[in-house]
């Protein structure tokens, strides 16, 4: 049975593909690119730790991949305003919702989505900045191969 709501304290795993150059080491700190959190549909994919036995390797597609950690409550604290097409401002609420992938057997899959949908791409760009920064504040669940 999949919980209908992602709990605030749930850890979320995000795959950082090893071959895409999505991170850099500077002054002893690893910095994550916002590109690592971007998605064509503007719904960043994650896996719920509690539904994959807390095993971040569940999220890897390649053993060299890194896996970054987000926490649901911190993602939900992202609030964003953007320009509305009709003028004025839109206030977006960012949430993490279950999105089990039955075709590929990934019941832990969830997506980070806004309400309402983004009216302009620039808001999502800022959301990915926030996601990258939140992930940087936490340890890797699995470091990418070239940082191990």
């Amino acid at each position, binding site marked *: 049975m999949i919980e209908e709501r992602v709990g605030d304290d749930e850890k979320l795993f995000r795959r950082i593909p090893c*071959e*895409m*150059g*999505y*991170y*850099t080491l*500077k002054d002893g*700190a690893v*910095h994550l*690119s*916002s*590109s*690592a959190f*971007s*998605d*064509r549909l503007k719904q960043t994919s994650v896996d719920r730790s509690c539904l994959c036995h807390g095993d971040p390797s569940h999220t890897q597609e390649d053993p060299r991949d890194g896996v970054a950690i987000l926490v649901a409550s*911190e993602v939900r*604290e*992202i*609030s*964003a*305003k953007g320009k509305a097409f009709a003028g004025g401002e839109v206030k977006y609420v960012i949430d993490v919702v279950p999105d089990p992938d039955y075709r590929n057997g990934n019941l832990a899959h969830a997506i980070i989505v806004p309400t309402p949908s983004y009216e302009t*791409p*620039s*808001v999502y*760009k*800022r*959301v*990915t*900045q*926030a996601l990258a*920064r*939140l992930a940087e504040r936490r340890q890797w669940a699995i470091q990418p191969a070239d940082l191990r």
Partner: protein
Amino acid sequence: MTTEVAVLRKETFAATTVDSISDLSFAATVFDNLSCLTAAAVRALADTLLQLKRSSAASDSLWTPFIETRSKLVRTIPSHADVEEGALSRAAGWLSWLQESVDRWDEPLVTANADREVVFEWWHSDRKLAVFFSSDTSELIRVWGTDIDTEMEEGSPEVRDEALAAWAWLTA
């Protein structure tokens, strides 16, 4: 001068006589001795030639750094990343301009995002500068926290004063 730039110089002059310079087979012939280049890179270089043809008034001193920057970007972005060809030209032009315009230069992290944009990112202390180029738009975001409304600020990198102000902010 790198071999690649030398080849580009020679072939660019020849290319000006070709009507359909965006013909990929022609571009491939031009660059077939550059085995390190992927098909995407060949397309990107074809686009470079097209741009050079359009701005024939540009002097060597202007376009050589552009070509060098662009070639570097082509190699930096993973070959399987899906990037708009036009984005690469705009991004390279902007990056070579910025590098020549500031005193203290720092190489960016270069990636491609899901929207096929070229993304440059720099970090300095708690500050970050992110710049995005698609084939027809560009955007700059200053980031100093996770609050989207109060700790991020957008701008236009192609407004030179805005870009230089953002760089000064980043490196202050």
